[in-house]
Every structure is written in structure tokens, then in C-alpha cells.
């Protein structure tokens, strides 16, 4: 019975994905893509990966969708090339080969499955964390997460560098050009405080149950964007010292902890014994702030000339 539900879910994802790839109206394709993201979130829950489900829905579908919707508004300007039937057939063949290769890999996975779960169980008590995924992200594979925060920072620098010189240090264009309506204003006033609470809770609870810095940060970013869309809060100028500090706090606090690990614990990104939980929470607070601010700024895009 549950396999039937899983199969229906899989078919829905596939249908929506085909709609995304089928072409046509940019707006419809982006909405179909956001649908794929939400359905994938359900599939991640079925795969017992609730942390990933939250990330997929918040970042992969929600915030990515917001960025893509902005691109869809420009889509009529971007039509570039036409391809022939033969090319379509060749592309279809390549797609089939990719499917066949991955399907063989999936069907021939070794049994019993190799797993790092026992290693995580053995090492997790030392971190005082209850959520193994948070343990992997912030302790066992902390280097990945450090580099990931750096990737976000570099992406933001890349986006900002697309602004013409004369607009540098000014504010990005507002997401919503029309004056805010009463309904949007009301929604933002009700939703933003609740959403901010949810975001902070997701970050805080992430130590022991599904959640964490990325999921919580994404919800906080969405709430900030909502407040800006409703005109409750101005779009910040990118030259502000506070804003830049918030963007840099996470990656550089994490890097600082990593370097301190050399002196205090004998290895890069090693946490001093007895203070693991304290250091982990301090790093998590810093990266949550940076992730929330960076995600929101990535959605807002490069500065566009308005003085803040």
C-alpha cells in the first residue's frame, strides 16, 4: 500500500519535471519546478531524511523558486536558439543513456549496503548533539560546511559585482514594484513574526531533532523578504557596515574556530575538548545569521541605483 503511494508520488514528480523541461511559458515552467521541489520534499520524508526535506522545501523549492520567478519575468528577452528534430533525438538518446547508467547503478548497489551510520553513532556522544545530520554537518564534515558558507559568500560577491560602478553600495531593486496592497501588508504583519519564530526554533532545535542552520536561515531570509515586499522594511543598501558584518560573520567565525583548532586541539577544525557543544552553538549562531542575510541578498540581486 505504501509502495503504491510512493509510486504515485514518483509519477507526479516525473510529470512535473517533464513539464519543466517541455518548454513554453517561463512562468509556468518555474511554477512546475517549484512543484517538483515540494513533491521531492515529501519523497525525502519517505526516505526518512527529514533534514533534507526541510532544506529541499525551503531552499531548493522556495528560495530558488523566488529567484527563478524573477528570471521568468525576463524570459521573453532570452530566447536564443532553435534546434532541429535530429538534435532532439540525439539529446533524447543521451538522456536515455544517463537514465540507463544511473538505473544500473541503483539496481546493482551492494548488499548489505555500506554505511557510515555506526561510525556516527560511535562518535556522536562526544559532540553532545542529538541530531546525527547536524553532527555530520558541523563536526565530522565541518570542512564541507565551512566551504559551503564560503561558496554562498563568493556567489553573493559575484551577484553584487554585476552592478554598474555608479550603483555600487546602493540598494537592490525592490522585489515588488507595485505599492503594497492591504492584503499583502496584513499577511506580512501576521506571518513575519510567526515565521521568524519558526526560523529561530528550526535553528535551535536542529541540535537534537531535524532542522538546523540552513533550514532556519532560509526561513528567516524568507521572512525578511516578505517584510520588504510588503513595504514594512526598506531594502537595505549593500554598503552598510552592519549588513556586511552579518554576511561575513558566519564564514569567518567558522574559519577562525578552524584555525584556533590547530592551537587548542591539534588539528584544523578540531574543537577543544569539553567545549565542543559551546563552540558548535557559537558557530551555528554565526552561520545562521550569515546564511539568512546572504540568502535574502542573493534573492534581491545586485544594487540597482536607488539610494537607501
Amino acid at each position, binding site marked *: 500500500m505504501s*509502495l503504491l503511494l*510512493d*509510486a504515485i508520488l*514518483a509519477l507526479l*514528480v*516525473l510529470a512535473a519535471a517533464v513539464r*519543466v*523541461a517541455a518548454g513554453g511559458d517561463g512562468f509556468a*515552467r518555474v511554477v512546475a*519546478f517549484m512543484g517538483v521541489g515540494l513533491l*521531492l520534499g515529501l519523497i525525502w520524508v*519517505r*526516505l*526518512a531524511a527529514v533534514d*533534507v526535506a526541510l532544506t529541499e522545501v525551503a*531552499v*531548493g523549492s522556495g528560495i*530558488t523558486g523566488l529567484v*527563478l520567478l*524573477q528570471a*521568468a519575468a525576463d*524570459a521573453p*528577452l*532570452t*530566447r*536564443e536558439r532553435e*534546434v532541429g528534430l535530429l538534435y532532439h533525438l*540525439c*539529446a533524447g538518446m*543521451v*538522456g536515455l543513456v544517463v537514465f540507463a*547508467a*544511473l538505473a544500473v*547503478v*541503483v539496481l546493482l*548497489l551492494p548488499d548489505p549496503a*555500506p*554505511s*557510515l*551510520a555506526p561510525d*556516527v*553513532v560511535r562518535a556522536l556522544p562526544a559532540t553532545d548533539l542529538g541530531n546525527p*545530520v547536524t*553532527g*555530520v*554537518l558541523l563536526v565530522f*564534515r565541518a570542512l*564541507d560546511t565551512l566551504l*559551503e558558507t564560503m*561558496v554562498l559568500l563568493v*556567489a553573493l560577491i559575484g*551577484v553584487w559585482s*554585476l552592478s554598474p560602478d555608479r550603483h555600487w553600495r546602493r540598494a537592490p531593486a525592490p522585489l515588488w514594484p507595485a505599492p503594497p496592497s492591504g492584503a499583502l501588508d496584513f499577511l506580512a504583519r501576521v506571518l513575519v513574526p510567526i515565521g521568524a519564530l519558526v526560523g529561530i526554533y528550526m535553528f535551535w532545535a536542529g541540535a537534537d531533532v531535524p532542522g*538546523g542552520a*540552513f533550514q532556519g536561515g532560509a526561513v528567516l531570509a524568507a521572512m525578511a523578504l516578505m517584510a520588504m515586499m510588503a513595504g514594512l522594511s526598506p531594502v537595505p543598501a549593500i554598503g552598510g557596515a552592519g549588513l556586511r558584518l552579518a554576511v561575513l560573520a558566519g564564514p569567518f567565525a567558522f574559519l577562525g574556530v578552524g584555525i584556533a583548532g590547530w592551537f587548542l586541539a591539534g588539528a584544523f577544525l578540531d574543537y577543544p575538548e569539553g567545549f565542543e557543544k559551546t563552540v558548535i552553538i557559537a558557530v551555528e549562531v554565526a552561520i545562521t545569521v550569515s546564511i539568512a542575510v546572504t*540568502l535574502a541578498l*542573493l*534573492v534581491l*540581486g*545586485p544594487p540597482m541605483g536607488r539610494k537607501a
Partner: protein
Amino acid sequence: MSAPVLFGLLGAALSAVGVYGLMVGRDALARILAFNLLGGGVFLVFGAVARRGAGAGFAADPVPQALVITGIVVAFSATALAVALLKRLAALRARPGAAPAKVAGAQAEGTKGRVQPGGDA
């Protein structure tokens, strides 16, 4: 067929749709969308591997899960940068007088600098 195998195969299918879309996408937005579908498919294969690696009291191996969370955020960063480039390109093309010299009669493929409808006439 078990759920991890089913969703692993779905991941393979999503990857295939993504590769196909990347190849035939007619505009930059189509290719950005296809790139994200491809990523989603690869992540799902990771998810199947993680679920199969359940053990030691966990319903799924936490290491691949953490890698996927990292991957989703990195994919978003790449998407945001790509969309910013796309919008900047559109703004440059829409600007009057920004038409490159080789625009005249540009119907052939690969004319990246082609001026857009509105500036074309």
C-alpha cells in the same frame, strides 16, 4: 521493489530529464531549470543510498544526507548567480544602441549577442 530502489530510479529519470533539458533548452532560463532538475535527480540517488545505509539506530545514513543538504545550498548559490547574469544580460540587450555589429540578418545559431525583439526592427 522497495522504496529506496523506486526513488533511486526516479532520481535516475530526473537526471535524464535534466540532461535532455540542458541539451535542448531554447533559452537560458530553460537550461538553468534543467540544471536544477539534474541536481535534484543526483541528490535523490544519494537519498536512496542513504536510506539503504540505515543502521545503528538511524533510519538513514546521516553522511549522505548532510552532503545533500550542502549540495542543495550550493546549487541555489549557482542558480542565483546564473539568474543575476541572465538579468544583467537582458538589461544590456534591452538598452537602446547596445546592438552589436553582427546583428544584421542574425538568424543563425550561436549569435549570442543578437539584439532582442523590440530592438530588432
